[in-house]
């Protein structure tokens, strides 16, 4: 892979040089989106490049042209300014919060040494090449290379990355080799050159070199000319370069722990640090409903233009043919010939702009914020043990929670507790801890063998005690020997080291060069400490799936100790021995039986390395480590070379218990129509066992395994699987598809296999994918997501992040392995079981609420837009407006702004039901309440209501004479229109709300009341306005009330009749539950009310 930055030149940092300081940017952190001067232009630009805002801006500008505007321009400018400022204020608040945290980070004081001078400067002034003195508990302001630590013996330092990924364990860092022995004074005026690649975002990697400047007085350290590399040539008095690696580095944002202080050379500053380069805007996700909304809005827009076009044709005809005869219109004014053909359509267009609801985006965003609030505050989703609740990070996609069809779940830490309990061992072909519940720790035979000093058993335990990355806290010897002082990132390793300690081989500590264990088997013996020289650690990666250490034992022999995944380690055993192969056969059987009971297994092996071989290998390895290009590939090859010819010692088996409530949650969600995919790195048998125990599959299910080592085999295996699937279905059994990572690699490569796998996977009840690499997890999700089904991925570890970001909805668990997954996810939570409530309770309610809110917003806009243009049938197609400007402005801003918001409190079924009736979830899952059909019905309802209003107004209004002998004028008609329109809104809101509570009822009634209040106010106070004197006349006029009653009757009786008939003939479960509850309540029985 070629990254963009590989083209850039390597960095050459000359420590203490002014030129270096000037050349690179200062350590100013800036995460804000705007600067003070760019806020207004940039924010406005962003807002008005969105279609809806641009549309309304054009409308608002057109309205400034007084010849065409039917109403006061304030009707559009008011809402537009309101909407714009709400969005801007939200953005501003977000940016101010970022600015504040930047400001605090930038102004923190640090001690640096420049040219041997100590200075205390604020973080933003630190520059590349400065020597920084970092004290304990201080947070590193920039990426630094440690050149000296307060631990002068070993040069080690400890940091914690809690601020970055939530991992609280200590991580060891090393000071650079050539400098860690120097005195503080020498360090403070240290000069040298660090060469490293330009800033990049790969956190775990740093390939650099350090050359120290050598004082001319000290010829002993002067390097021979030949060894000088190209970088050093310009400055002849430099020592030969030593490699710098990630372990020498302190990253920005990490803090120093358990170490007095360190000196570090700043290499990357500000936003160019590893952390800064990793800051990316997360991929934005749109909800499923957004597509329906966009298409439907486009349809409404098209409808609008159809109206405009047809009215314009009639309007123009009338303008040219009829109007010249209407003397009272005084049509003799001179106008250019283009004037009317442009003005008339524009007038109609402006009348109809109200079809698109201007405030709908703001309303929906507010509603989503309310949903997020309810989720974050839900006390029923708080894990009482850890205190962590559910947190909605991506509020935009909460409705999607109600539509999930496929859930992709990680196994370890997600379905299981990730608390590893050491259960069984098989050493040299003998099993210890036999029986289902028994633990090897309690096995007397094993304890006896340890006391007797059985070499196989001892070496097995030594590997457990020596080959790991566990730390020991400072503690007294007894605590260590009890195994109570270990700190580990990986629960597996903790379990292994702890078990070794319990069995008599205690790991007591390690430093840079050595690692020690204490043999303390038997209660009376004094512990015998063995000290091993640590030669090399070949670390664990998800590709290698094994870890090794190379040690020199007290006798001087070089040994390699390995533990790793079964298939990997078994593949690297020596094959020349008959006894080995016999033991291997037995061990294989043990492995299979452990897998079948759901245990996680690791294989332990070791090797004696001849001294000459090791010396040669070491030389190659060291030279590979100083390479700037291809270092990893070279090192991996060398590791493969040395980790061969292993001798099998045995197998460990660890139990990982299921999390609380997992089987119930999965069983319930499966009944709710959700399919589960389990994606795990563990082996197939373990995965299958867990799938059984967490009810992902039934005991009787057909387990259909797809296997193959190349494309053709995989394709034919998939064909066979399809046949097996059909047979299972005929037999009425569940069908579970299973695939392993290596097989999936071939599936991914071939198109036919991909399609067949996808088809089968979508049909099967569950899918179990084992031995999956992290990238493969994301590939599976992508494969399924492409078919258009709604996916949710849930995981707890760093290896689940790609899957979490790929799926429509990503959920991260706050696990034992840190917060990485939780931070990358859209939702984070404290346990798998909360998924049930998140989906069926919050997801379903949010989906239904938003569906109503969106469609109602368009309905209320269509009714007003179409009403305005239709009035022109009665106004000579002249572009006249029936509604008064004030009402048009207030309609969206006041009269109907709040009712959609309080719909966020509506519950279509009592609060207990969604968690008890899985069938309820299918309603939202199948998009029954927000589809093109429902949109059509809502818009049709709007058009029908317009027709009813205008027809009744026409019939009643044309012969309507008030009691003082005044026939009604336009203002009375307009008043009747707006009151009946708002009464319809009131009826719509009240009948569509499934539950009335104090808040909803109050808001709905107050919104309706605001119309009356405003009209009463205008009626009395402003003689020049249309509304003056109107309300006092209509209020006492029976014909006015009659008109409203008739409009509401005609508008709603057919709808309610139709709805009721449907509820009788084809009742939905939610209807039935609601009715039963209401009946139970009304006859005084205890009803299913809230909690």
């Amino acid at each position, binding site marked *: 892979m070629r990254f963009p930055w590989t083209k850039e030149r390597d960095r050459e940092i000359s420590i203490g040089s002014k030129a270096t300081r000037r050349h690179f940017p200062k350590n100013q952190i800036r995460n804000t989106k705007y600067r003070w001067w760019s806020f207004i232009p940039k924010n406005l630009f962003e807002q008005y490049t969105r279609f809806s805002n641009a549309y309304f801006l054009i409308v608002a500008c057109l309205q400034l042209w007084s010849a065409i505007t039917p109403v006061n321009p304030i009707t559009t400018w008011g809402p537009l300014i309101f909407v714009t400022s709400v969005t801007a204020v939200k953005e501003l608040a977000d940016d101010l919060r970022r600015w504040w945290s930047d400001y605090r980070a930038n102004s923190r004081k640090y001690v640096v040494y420049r040219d041997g001078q100590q200075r205390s400067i604020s973080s933003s002034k630190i520059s590349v090449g400065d020597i920084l003195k970092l004290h304990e508990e201080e947070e590193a302001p920039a990426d630094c290379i440690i050149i000296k630590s307060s631990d002068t013996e070993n040069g080690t330092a400890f940091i914690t990355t809690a601020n970055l990924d939530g991992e609280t364990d200590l991580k060891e860092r090393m000071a650079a080799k050539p400098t860690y022995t120097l005195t503080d004074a020498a360090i403070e005026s240290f000069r040298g050159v660090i060469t490293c690649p330009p800033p990049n975002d790969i956190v775990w990697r740093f390939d650099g070199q350090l050359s120290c400047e050598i004082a001319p007085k000290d010829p002993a350290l002067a390097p021979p000319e030949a060894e000088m590399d190209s970088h050093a040539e310009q400055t002849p008095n430099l020592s030969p370069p030593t490699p710098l690696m990630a372990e020498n580095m302190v990253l920005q944002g990490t803090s120093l722990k358990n170490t007095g202080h360190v000196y570090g050379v700043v290499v990357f500053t500000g936003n160019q640090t590893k952390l800064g380069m990793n800051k990316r805007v997360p991929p934005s996700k749109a909800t499923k409903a957004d597509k329906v909304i966009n298409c439907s809005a486009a349809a409404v827009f098209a409808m609008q233009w159809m109206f405009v076009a047809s009215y314009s044709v009639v309007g123009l005809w009338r303008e040219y043919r009829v109007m010249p005869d209407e003397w009272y219109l005084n049509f003799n004014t001179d106008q250019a010939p283009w004037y009317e053909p442009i003005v008339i359509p524009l007038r109609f267009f402006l009348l109809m702009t109200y079809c698109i609801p201007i405030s709908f985006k703001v309303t929906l965003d507010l509603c989503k914020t309310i949903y997020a609030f309810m989720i974050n505050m839900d006390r029923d989703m708080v894990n009482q043990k850890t205190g962590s609740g559910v947190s909605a990070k991506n509020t935009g996609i909460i409705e999607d929670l109600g539509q999930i069809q496929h859930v992709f779940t990680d196994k370890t830490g997600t379905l299981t507790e990730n608390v590893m309990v050491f259960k069984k061992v098989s050493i040299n072909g003998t099993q210890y801890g036999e029986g289902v519940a028994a633990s090897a720790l309690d096995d007397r035979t094993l304890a006896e063998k340890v006391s007797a000093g059985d070499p196989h058993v001892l070496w097995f335990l030594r590997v457990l005690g020596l080959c790991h990355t566990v730390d020991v806290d400072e503690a007294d010897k007894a605590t260590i020997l009890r195994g109570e002082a270990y700190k580990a990132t990986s629960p597996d390793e903790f379990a292994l080291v702890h078990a070794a300690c319990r069995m008599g081989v205690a790991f007591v500590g390690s430093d840079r060069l050595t690692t020690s264990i204490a043999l303390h088997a038997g209660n009376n013996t004094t512990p015998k400490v063995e000290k091993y020289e640590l030669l090399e650690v070949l670390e664990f990666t998800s590709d290698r799936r094994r870890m090794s250490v190379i040690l020199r034992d007290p006798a001087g022999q070089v040994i390699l100790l390995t533990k790793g995944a079964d298939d990997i380690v078994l593949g690297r055993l020596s094959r020349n021995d008959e006894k080995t192969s016999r033991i291997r056969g037995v061990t294989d059987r043990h492995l299979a039986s452990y897998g079948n009971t759901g245990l996680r297994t690791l294989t332990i092996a070791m090797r004696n390395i001849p001294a000459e071989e090791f010396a040669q290998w070491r030389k190659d390895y060291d030279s590979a480590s100083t390479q700037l290009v291809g270092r990893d590939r070279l090192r991996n090859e060398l590791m493969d070379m040395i980790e061969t010819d292993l001798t099998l010692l045995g197998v460990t088996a660890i139990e990982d218990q299921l999390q609380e409530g997992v089987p119930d949650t999965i069983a319930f969600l499966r009944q709710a129509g959700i399919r589960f995919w389990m994606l795990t790195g563990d082996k197939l048998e373990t995965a299958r066992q867990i799938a059984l125990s967490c009810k992902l599959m039934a005991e009787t299910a057909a387990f259909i395994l797809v296997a193959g080592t190349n494309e053709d085999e995989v394709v034919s295996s998939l064909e066979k699987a399809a046949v097996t699937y059909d047979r299972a279905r005929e037999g009425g059994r569940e069908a579970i598809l299973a695939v392993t990572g290596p097989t999936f690699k071939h599936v991914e490569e071939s198109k036919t296999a991909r399609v067949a796998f996808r088809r089968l996977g979508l049909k099967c009840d569950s899918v179990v994918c084992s031995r999956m690499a992290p990238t493969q997890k994301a590939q599976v999700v992508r494969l399924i997501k492409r078919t258009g089904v709604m996916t949710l991925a849930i995981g707890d570890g760093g290896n689940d992040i790609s899957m979490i970001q790929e799926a429509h909805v990503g959920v991260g668990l706050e696990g034992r392995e840190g917060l990485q997954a939780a931070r990358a996810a859209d939702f984070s939570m404290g346990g798998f079981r909360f998924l049930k409530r998140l989906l069926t309770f919050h997801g379903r309610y949010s989906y239904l609420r938003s569906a109503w809110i969106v469609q109602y917003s368009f309905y209320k806009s269509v009714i007003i837009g179409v009403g305005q243009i239709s009035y022109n049938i*009665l106004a000579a197609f002249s572009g006249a407006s029936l509604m008064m400007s004030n009402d048009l402005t207030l309609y969206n801003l006041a009269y109907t702004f709040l009712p959609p918001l309080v719909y966020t409190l509506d519950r279509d079924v009592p609060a207990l039901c969604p968690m008890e009736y899985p069938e309820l979830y299918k309603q939202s899952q199948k998009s029954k309440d927000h589809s093109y059909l429902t949109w059509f019905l809502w818009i049709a309802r709007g058009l029908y209501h317009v027709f009813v209003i205008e027809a009744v107004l026409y019939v009643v209004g044309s012969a309507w004479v008030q009691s003082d002998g005044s026939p009604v004028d336009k203002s009375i008609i307009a008043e009747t229109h707006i009151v009946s329109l708002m009464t319809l809104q009131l009826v719509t809101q009240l009948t569509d709300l499934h539950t009335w509570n104090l808040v909803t009822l109050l808001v709905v009634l107050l919104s309706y009341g605001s119309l009356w209040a405003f009209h009463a106010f205008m009626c009395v106070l402003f003689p020049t306005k249309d509304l003056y004197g109107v309300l006092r006349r209509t209020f006492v006029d029976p014909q006015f009330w009659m008109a409203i009653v008739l409009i509401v009757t005609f508008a709603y009786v057919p709808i309610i009749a139709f709805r009721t008939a449907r509820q009788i003939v084809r009742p939905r479960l939610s209807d039935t539950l609601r009715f039963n509850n209401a009946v139970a309540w009304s006859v005084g029985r205890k009803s299913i009310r809230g909690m």
Partner: protein
Amino acid sequence: MSELVEKAQKITSWTTHKLFNEAQNRYFQPVLTPIIAGSCMCLSFLALAIITAFLAISQNNRVAISKRYDDLSATSLTMSLTKEMKNAYLFYELEDFYQNHKRFADSISWEQLNTGSDSQGNLEDACTYTKVVCRTLSDTCDPCGLVYRAHFNDTFTLTKVGGSTVTLDPTVGWKTDRDNKFDDAFEKGDPDRDRLTSWMRVSGLGGKTLKPYAKVGDLDKGDYTVAFNSVFPVNSFSGQKRVILMEVGDVVGAFGWGLPLLSGAAAGLLLVSSLVIWSVIVAKLAVTLVLKAINKNKAAKAGAGREEEEETTYQSPLVSHM
């Protein structure tokens, strides 16, 4: 500081809990179950039917005479009253005259009419299609705009055949308009001032412009002559002019047959809807009973075959709540 923050968090948590959980848990469920919906519709039908009957009777008893006069060559017409009239008004009606045409209705300055004057700029904006003569209303200066310029200027007199002239009270239009909305300077001293305030309130529905001419009061039976001076031109746009004599109720005013007919239609809609709902309820009940009977029959037959088997009827939660 941190105490304050903690307190604030507690309050927020408490408020949100109150608002989002307790408020939602204390609810009233206005469930329109089929039976409630059907009953409500029946009751509404009854209420509307009574109102309809009242409206129809009231409309049937109202005396109203409407005569077209623009096509007459004479200067008067006769109206025969077969019944006496209570609280009658004289109206004129223009057909195909669009007072609510945008160009016409917008051509008015309410500021000028209300305060007696308006700024030149506002007047020019408001009255684009006429020349602005002057800013301040006076005896010699008329308000700007088409609405005033094209005001109706026919005059009528009403005489009982073989009797005296009936007094026509010109106090028509809205009281608030006469007193507050129009400035005193508007048509000061003109006997037609009140008619003009009524004209300036543009009518809103199509080309039919109905305006009051005068209050007539009670009239005896007999023939009446309406003499008219027809000067307002309507021929160019083939409009019509009518003169109307009509009773106006003290509370309800006056209405045509449209209102009772609509009301009757609404009552009919309610009746049909409630019938539909009731019949669907009955049909569903019948179907359920029949199905139950059939199932029972089947179960009995099947049960006869294997009596020893224990009866296990699993009822899913879904079924039990139907």
